């Protein structure tokens, strides 16, 4: 970010996450984000027929409290709901059931890392509330449409202190928050589908001033982390420019206009709404016993910050790889399952997973055949480094081929046909040089589409890589003899002739030769 001449952005975030419950916050209607047909996830409570009453979804409370705990918040012994009144067609009761002064979680924080520096973003509070429906305004028609599928969906609203100073911090915080709520299973937390929504409150403190500025600009309609960053980066210079002219930006709600990359004023907040909060008389006060809170605390899964640290320590993976893995909770589980398979194999001392001629057949684990496998020679003292190497390979394959395929199919890792055991086998086939990298991709494609053991697939597709030095050597000799010009050129210093010769050997061997062995032999023979 460019120098701000002493101006300091003051940014707080309000984040709504839609809790991953079966039913809505206060009724048994389905809570299904992304339902296409309008007004199907509704019942008489959602449409606020006369006489209907809310019944609290206990699961939503549990998820909300879990998320609160994961955000290092205090969970009070008592908490209550309040009614927040305003008229709008997407709000059937004419009030939203929310929490005013006794939220389920308060005073937490999230530590993020920005450019190698740790920074703490304080969480003011997190409270439960119900979502509103959705209005649409068909152009040119004299009416609007109301879809109540989302009305009454359970939300957790998380409010931060204005501790954020840059768009980057905001993005990193949002990513970490998303990870945390996903890790505890509270929400899908997907910006693009609206199960996570973010409204930054942005203001700028003048040089030399202290405390909070006397205005703030709220930006709505942000549906990706990228837009959150862009909106902040648009607002800061806009506000500084005004402040430099001696003006105070208006206290307004802006919308992010993604077409024109700018914020646009939506409504002025000067006529502040009076929501007439009062305690919801239809719902008893919630009592969170010490025991209940302790149980939930015990049930908290490993959180991203802890997983990051453990992955770096246990697996010797680089920061970027760890970070990429940690971004996808389910993938970390899968990854660890694959690592377990690798470990089991390493520990067993039975190093043969593939016996030539008896590829992958159970019972082929004959110690006498160990010598035919590269890993058969492995000494105990090389175990550690082998493991690290294999794990890195697992991580890379998880993050690249596997992630790409999962994403294109919209699958979760555990839904894939590739079992962790087969995944581990494939990695070992690659590592041992049994198959080339490109062959591995072909094998993996089959595994992903149909399942099956990689060694069988290698057989079926005839992709086994030839690493047999004698076999390759005979082909190398043949190629060298048949291409005297290229040999001459190489010896005269033309490096590309070497590549040509490698290519010829590979061609002769239908691409199945181990390139390392070809290189080695050629170099030896060409001097």
């Amino acid at each position, binding site marked *: 970010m460019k120098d701000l001449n002493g101006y300091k952005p003051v940014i707080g975030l309000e984040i709504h996450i839609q809790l991953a419950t079966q039913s809505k916050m206060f009724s048994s209607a389905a809570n299904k984000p992304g339902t296409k047909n309008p007004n199907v996830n509704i019942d008489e409570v959602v449409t*606020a*027929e*006369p*006489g*209907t*009453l809310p019944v609290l979804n206990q699961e939503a409370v549990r998820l909300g409290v879990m998320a609160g705990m994961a955000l290092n918040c205090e969970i009070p012994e008592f908490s209550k709901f309040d009614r927040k*009144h305003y008229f709008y067609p997407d709000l059937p*009761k004419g009030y939203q059931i929310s929490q005013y002064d006794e939220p389920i979680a308060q005073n937490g924080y999230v530590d993020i890392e920005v450019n190698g520096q740790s920074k703490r973003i304080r969480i003011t509070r997190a409270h439960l509330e119900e979502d509103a429906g959705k209005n649409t305004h068909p152009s040119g028609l004299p009416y609007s449409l*109301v879809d109540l599928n989302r009305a009454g969906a359970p939300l957790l609203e998380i409010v931060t202190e204005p501790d954020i100073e840059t768009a980057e911090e905001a993005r990193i915080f949002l990513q970490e928050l998303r990870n945390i709520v996903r890790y505890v299973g509270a929400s899908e937390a997907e910006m693009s589908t609206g199960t996570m929504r973010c409204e930054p409150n942005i203001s700028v403190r003048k040089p030399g001033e202290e405390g909070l500025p006397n205005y703030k600009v709220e930006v709505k309609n942000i549906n990706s982390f990228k837009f959150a960053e862009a909106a902040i980066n648009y607002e800061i210079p806009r506000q500084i420019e005004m402040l430099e002219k001696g003006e105070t930006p208006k206290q307004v709600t802006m919308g992010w206009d993604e077409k024109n990359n700018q914020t646009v004023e939506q409504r002025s907040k000067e006529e502040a709404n009076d929501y*007439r909060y009062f305690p919801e008389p239809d719902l008893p006060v919630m009592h969170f016993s010490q025991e209940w809170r302790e149980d939930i605390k015990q049930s908290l899964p490993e959180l991203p910050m802890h997983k990051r640290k453990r992955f770096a320590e246990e697996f010797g993976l680089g920061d970027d790889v760890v970070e990429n893995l940690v971004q996808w909770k389910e993938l970390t589980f899968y990854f660890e399952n694959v690592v377990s398979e690798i470990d089991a194999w390493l520990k067993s001392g039975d190093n043969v997973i593939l016996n030539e001629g008896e590829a992958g057949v159970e019972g082929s684990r004959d110690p006498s055949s160990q010598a035919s496998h590269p890993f058969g020679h492995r000494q105990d003292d090389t175990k550690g480094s082998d493991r690290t190497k294999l794990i890195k390979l697992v991580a890379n394959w998880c993050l690249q081929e596997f992630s790409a395929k999962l994403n294109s199919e919209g699958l979760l890792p555990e839904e894939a046909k590739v079992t962790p055991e087969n995944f581990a086998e494939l990695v070992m086939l690659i590592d041992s040089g049994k198959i080339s990298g490109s062959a591995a991709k072909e094998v993996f494609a089959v595994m992903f589409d149909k399942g099956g053991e990689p060694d069988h697939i290698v057989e079926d597709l005839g992709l086994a890589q030839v690493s047999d030095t004698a076999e390759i050597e005979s082909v190398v000799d043949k190629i060298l003899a048949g291409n005297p010009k290229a040999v001459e050129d190489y010896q005269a210093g033309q490096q590309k002739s070497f590549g040509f010769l490698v290519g010829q050997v590979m061609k002769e061997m239908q691409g199945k030769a181990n390139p390392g062995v070809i290189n080695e032999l050629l170099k030896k023979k060409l001097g």
Partner: protein
Amino acid sequence: MQFEKLSLLELRQKLDNKEISSVELTKYFLDRIKARNPELNAFITITEDQALKQAEEADAFIAEPGGNFALTGIPFAAKDLFNTKGIKTTAASKILENYISPYDATVISKLKEQKAVLLGKTNLDQFAHGSSGETSYFGATKNPWDKERMPGGSSSGSAAAVAAGISPWALATETGGSIRQPASLTGISGWKPTYGRVSRYGVAAMASSLDSMGAVANSVKELALIAEAISGHDPKDATTGSQEVGEYLKNLNTDLKGLKVGIPKEYFIDGMHPEVKASVEAAIKELEKQGAELVEVSLPNTKYGSLVYAIVCPSEVSSNLARYDGIRYGHSSSEAQNLEEVYELSRAEGFGDEAKRRIMTGTYVLSAGYYDAYYKKAQRVRRLILDEFETIFKQVDVLACPSVPNVAPKLGHAANDPLFGYIADQLNIPASLAGLPALSVPCGFAKPEDGQTDMPVGLQIIGPQWGEQVVFNVGAAYQEVTDFHTRKPQK
């Protein structure tokens, strides 16, 4: 045979003995409704077709071995605040004039399971806002004892229907006296349950923290039977209690020996009708004759009851009526040109004066800056009233006092007096604020200051929280030795 003179227990016997069918009984009461309703205006909707169909089903059920519940085949009426699937539920308002509910209130479901027969939906003060029955969009209900007089409210139609013998019993609701007051003014028995004893689900809300669904009938014994049928925890109403429902009828104990009956002096107010006072005092003496020990007690916070109610009730009303916005159902103004006007005009046209008055008051009271001064303070005083009752119920088993300080006023009396209800209900409101069970039972007659016809007087019996059994005991004991509950108006 005059079936309106039989109790629900007697009707049960006749049905079980096949002396009469449910269809015959239903037709009998439908005929009576048709004959009497034009003058009484007790019913808004008469559900003749559905009633006859339900009666046929009840008869088929009774024909099966063991096929009966206490209320199977017996007709009843429901205050038109209870949602009834496929049947108009108007709340006696214009805004819901043509509203047909897509679901049944929990209490209605329970009665359907029992195969009770719904005769129709009874008139009430619009949205239960009132104590005279006169705020109904469908016109005032008449008191069967004197058709120039009001039956009280808001359960005006239910009370008038039972008093006139055109329905054996009726569902009613209370927020601050809407069962006890009309029961008293029409000379019948009314039960306001402990808050949370009967599900509120499916009954258009007035003031959520006060609303209690109960019933009116000809005797306390019958109320005990009805209470068993409609009480209980409802997973759809988070404010219902999980306390087990007693076998109130079977466990009725009308031996009052050793029972301590508190007489709260604040309930015998200045300006009370002297004959009303005399009747109630005589009734209390009757309890003493039966062995009860009378204890004079004081509940000094009683005087704050109506004031607290005047804040809490409109606050919750203003919130609960927000859903009637002309968008999804109910009256929507045909004049509206934009969203703002849909709200403004639909509500302006759809709500009556009393609803508007309460919306205005409640909105003001809940506004930023006023909430602490009014609503919050009122809730604190409410707590004091509740504590006071709790303390008293450590000394006595029940309280006995007048239900209403007067007899039924003439129609029109309430129209120009917005404070009418607060005065009419002042002896009912404290128990409502505390969520306590209470009865009104007929205990005599008094001549109105402005008329010649003797009008009924009611004795109020208030019990501790969840103390339905003890109030039924005292009420039934009183009715064992008196006959006021059997007296009916001349046609």
